[in-house]
């Protein structure tokens, strides 16, 4: 029994169908208490006011935004090396989730930044990097949509994901370099994690776990949908041939 057996679509559907309700339950059990705890039962920080509570969405969303791309990278490589269709479809399924999380991180960041820094947007390295990441997600998804043949699409998007990762890292470094070179604006970016006191920290951890589980749930759901869509296509092709 090897882990690769789950890469067979049939086996994957069986297993994921069994696992899914449990993951959904666990997501609800962590995310809802985490958010409620964070929102209603934490004190207001002296210099942040009530705005600090957005941290419970902002930070987990940002973490998922980056890690979703990492997951896509790994899934893409598995597809290229071992040709497991489920892997390619999982990468495809994760992209819109990652993009949404990036968008959530950007928007909540703007909403938070307005009262804190007096501006909705600044070309701070962190903010800029997330914007760049958002563009990478857009391109990746657009390529999936544009190609008819599913195997060709899987191959090309996997290649794009790998090359894109290299350039995303380069961009991250470049953006850091670019801004510090211009306005020494590092003071704008508040290092969140380090400044978070214990009272805020515990619900935050719960929220992060909740978001991770939410991500897993959504990826499983979407991958199952993709597998079914592919199966439908295969059946249609068979009908046509018969």
């Amino acid at each position, binding site marked *: 029994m090897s882990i690769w057996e789950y890469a067979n679509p049939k086996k994957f559907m069986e297993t994921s169908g069994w696992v899914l309700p449990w993951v959904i339950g666990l997501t609800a059990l962590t995310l809802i208490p985490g958010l409620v705890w964070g929102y209603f039962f934490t004190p207001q920080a002296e210099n942040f006011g009530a705005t600090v509570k957005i941290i419970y969405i902002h930070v987990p969303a940002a973490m998922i935004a980056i890690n979703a791309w990492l997951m896509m990278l790994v899934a893409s490589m598995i597809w290229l090396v071992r040709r497991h269709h489920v892997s390619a479809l999982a990468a495809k399924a994760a992209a819109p989730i990652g993009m949404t999380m990036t968008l959530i991180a950007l928007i909540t960041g703007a909403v938070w930044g307005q009262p804190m820094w007096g501006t909705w947007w600044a070309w701070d390295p962190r903010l800029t990097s997330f914007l760049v990441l958002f563009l*990478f997600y857009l391109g990746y998804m657009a390529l999936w949509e*544009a*190609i008819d043949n599913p195997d*060709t699409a899987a191959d*090309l998007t996997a*290649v794009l994901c790998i*090359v894109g990762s290299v350039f995303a890292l380069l*961009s991250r470094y470049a953006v850091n*370099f670019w801004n510090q*070179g211009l306005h020494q604006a590092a003071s704008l970016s508040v290092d969140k994690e380090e400044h978070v006191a214990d009272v805020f920290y515990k619900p935050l951890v719960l929220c992060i776990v909740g978001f991770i589980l939410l991500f897993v749930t959504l990826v499983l759901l979407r991958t199952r949908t993709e597998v079914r869509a592919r199966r439908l296509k295969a059946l249609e092709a068979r009908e046509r041939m018969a």
Partner: protein
Amino acid sequence: MIALLFRDMRLAVRAGGGFGLGLAFFLIVTVLIPFGVGPQSEILGRIAPGVLWVAALLACLLSLDRIFALDYEDGSLDLLATAPLPLEGVVAMKALAHWLTTGLPLTLVAPGLGLLLNMPEDAYFWLVVTLLLGTPALSYIGTFGAALTVGLKRGGLLLSLLVLPLYMPTLIFGAEALRRGADGMANTTPLFMLAGITLFTIALLPFVAAAAVRINLR
């Protein structure tokens, strides 16, 4: 391989090859800028280096879809893929031809357009140097993007969407090296980074692009 290089360059220069289009586009964008930001020469001079870099980048983008699309439509790409040339070499030569007919001419006319924007004197040297170092990367990255979208009917817009994020590091380091050089600051770090990206793309992307072309021909 050399035959391919000459063929692609000849095709670009011949009627319908679109050789002048990139240059004309570069000129027009540069002319539009003062209309947008106002005629004050002080402001124009300050933004000139960045504007010229962005305009050159967009002008490069304009002709990318021609790299493979025409050869794909008339069947040459199939024939090239079955020819004794390694496809990686074909891709590298096509990217080189693109640079020689796009990036290099853009670099050469850029100082003239700098005059239009009242660019400060110290910037001219660095403008040419950074464009010379950076535009090959634009051609090679663009060739990779073109390879991804070979088989698509209207891949032009998608190509821009795929390639522009990949252009970002090149643009950042190129414009930064230029800006620092023009201000008389040390700019070896961004300059080396720019040269590094260019060498890296020339060395590796033809392999990836050739793989993408093969997938698309399948």
